[in-house]
């Protein structure tokens, strides 16, 4: 029998596979019909899905609600834009965004990880607001207008090149990157580091007794989340050709939180589904009223109150059951005596 985390992650992977298949279907349809609008929209949804993924890594696994995750998304986007305007190289832009968000997340983590719970939410909110306003006031960064005229780049992939201007090509590249980020996060959460995080969320006071550093685990999760947000943000100027301070403001962070809650907190793949769902909802509701916030706000509230694991929480148990029935042979032992997992289990089952 696999332990619960592994089992639920397997179900998530299956949902991820379904997601990729559906996305490939959309790409094929887009390529066949030449309809670029939905592909562009889908690409944007995927980019914001990366931001939602980073919010879920923090909220769903270490229990820390970040209300300012757009900070790293914005830093990634701006650094990528600045790099592209100097040297139109995809890999250079991604590398620069990676480095910049790594440094920013270490600094931000040193500040934000001094506090817990509500204070953490509000300090991340404050940090993002400070940076957003600084960018908003800096003329060299285009101030409130942002920066436009970011060149359309050719992305070199070994023997091939794909233009960021090609809707299908760029959609596939973004899909590959976001799913790679998902896979990386899921992999890391399956290592002892991930178990420490889960244990941390379940019962922070017991973790130090097992010999794990709470601070180090929190920092690692925070920095990882920052980098994921930054790498997703780096893709944004390649898609839209501009960056603006709005990318860092609270609305962007708030949308990521909404995506995570709709999709399912602590499911990773839920963040990605949630992000796509939010975009679809906005465009459907937006086609008959400009007041989409009422519907989204209502759905959001209902999810928080009645579906704490979001939409994925509705379908995933069925998949888990199906998976465990399909392989009765897998009754072998899980990872030997995984202490944090046991802490997490006991804390979860006891009220």
């Amino acid at each position: 029998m696999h332990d619960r985390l592994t089992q639920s992650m397997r179900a998530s992977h299956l949902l991820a596979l379904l997601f990729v298949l559906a996305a490939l279907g959309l790409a094929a349809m887009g390529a066949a019909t030449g309809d670029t609008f939905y592909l562009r929209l889908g690409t944007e949804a995927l980019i914001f899905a990366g931001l939602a993924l980073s919010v879920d890594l923090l909220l769903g696994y270490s229990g820390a609600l970040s209300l300012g995750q757009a900070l790293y998304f914005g830093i990634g986007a701006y650094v990528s834009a600045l790099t592209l305007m100097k040297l139109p190289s995809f890999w250079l832009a991604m590398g620069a965004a990676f480095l910049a968000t790594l440094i920013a997340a270490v600094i931000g983590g040193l500040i934000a990880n001094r506090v817990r719970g509500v204070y953490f939410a509000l300090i991340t909110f404050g940090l993002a607001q400070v940076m957003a306003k600084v960018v908003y006031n800096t003329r060299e960064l285009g101030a409130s207008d942002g920066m436009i005229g970011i060149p359309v780049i050719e992305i070199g992939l070994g023997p091939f090149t794909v233009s960021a201007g090609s809707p299908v090509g760029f959609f596939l590249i973004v899909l590959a990157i976001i799913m790679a980020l998902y896979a990386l996060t899921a992999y890391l959460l399956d290592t002892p580091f991930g178990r420490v995080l889960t244990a941390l969320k379940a019962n922070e006071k017991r973790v130090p007794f097992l010999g794990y550093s709470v601070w180090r685990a929190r920092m690692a999760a925070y920095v990882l989340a920052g980098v994921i947000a930054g790498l997703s943000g780096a893709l944004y100027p390649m898609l839209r050709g501009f960056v603006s301070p709005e990318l860092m403001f609270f609305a962007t962070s708030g949308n990521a939180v909404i995506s995570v809650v709709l999709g399912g907190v602590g499911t990773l793949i839920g963040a990605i589904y949630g992000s796509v769902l939010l975009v679809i909802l906005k465009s459907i509701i937006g086609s008959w009223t400009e007041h989409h916030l009422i519907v989204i706000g209502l759905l959001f509230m209902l999810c928080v109150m009645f579906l704490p694991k979001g939409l994925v929480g509705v379908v995933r148990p069925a998949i888990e059951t199906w998976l465990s029935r399909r392989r009765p042979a897998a009754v072998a032992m899980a990872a030997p005596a995984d202490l944090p997992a046991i802490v997490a289990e006991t804390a979860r089952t006891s009220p």
Partner: protein
Amino acid sequence: MTPVDYLQFVLAPQVVNGLALGVAVVLVALGLTIIFGMLDVINMSHGEFYAIGAYAALALGAAGIGFWFLLVLVPVLMIPLGMAAERLLIRPVFDTRDRHVTTLLVTFGLGLIVEDVLKIVFGANTQRPPTPIPGATEIFGIILPNYRIFLILVGAAIVLGVAFVVYKTRLGAMVRAAAFDRNMAASLGVPVSLVYAGTFAFGVSLAGLAGVLLAPIYSVFPTMGRDFILLAFTVVIVGGMGSIWGAVVAGLLLTQVQALASLVISPVWTDPIVFGTMVAFLVFRPQGLFGRLGHA
């Protein structure tokens, strides 16, 4: 410009304006901090309740109800609203393990909805009710708008009144007891769930009152709550979540920082400076200036 002129025409009016803004922020933060100190719940929709108060004042004022009556009527009308919000949204998730995050998210959702409803009902444009007290008074050679003087006085009276009720009356003792230990208070006969609903409603009603008072100065628009709540949260954090005096001291301090920074540095840099102060405070003194309401 001589130093005396600078003092009289630049610095002093700016300090008084900062004081008026400080009182305004303290009024909004007061409800926020009471709800947090008492229920241990973050009300992210507090700014939207403030906006509801302002719009109610605008609509009822246009219907012919006088400003002085509105000061009483709007807070009273806000009470059932706050009670309903507490009963429908807070109470069902109050006992979840992650209460802070869950209630924060629920009220965030409520805020989104209210903002859009206000947009539908009143339109997206900025409106401004007429000032109920026109004119200006000269004090020590400094010209001050009368309404701002009134705001400072009324704000001080409200804060003192609330502090008196919370710290000196039997009702306040019941509220503090329920905040300190819910079960013990219940066993001593305090109607805890009514106290919780009442406290939430009271906080919401204070936000509404702030809306009535501030509408003539800061205008009324659907996203007004969102713009103001940032500052109010900052004040509550720096003051110590749940502390009334903390909110007062931090509110006045931060708005002076803002007023002086906009004078000395530049108005566009005030937000980063104020939020930077908040971040610095959280880093060096995460518990804020003062302690919690129920634990004082």
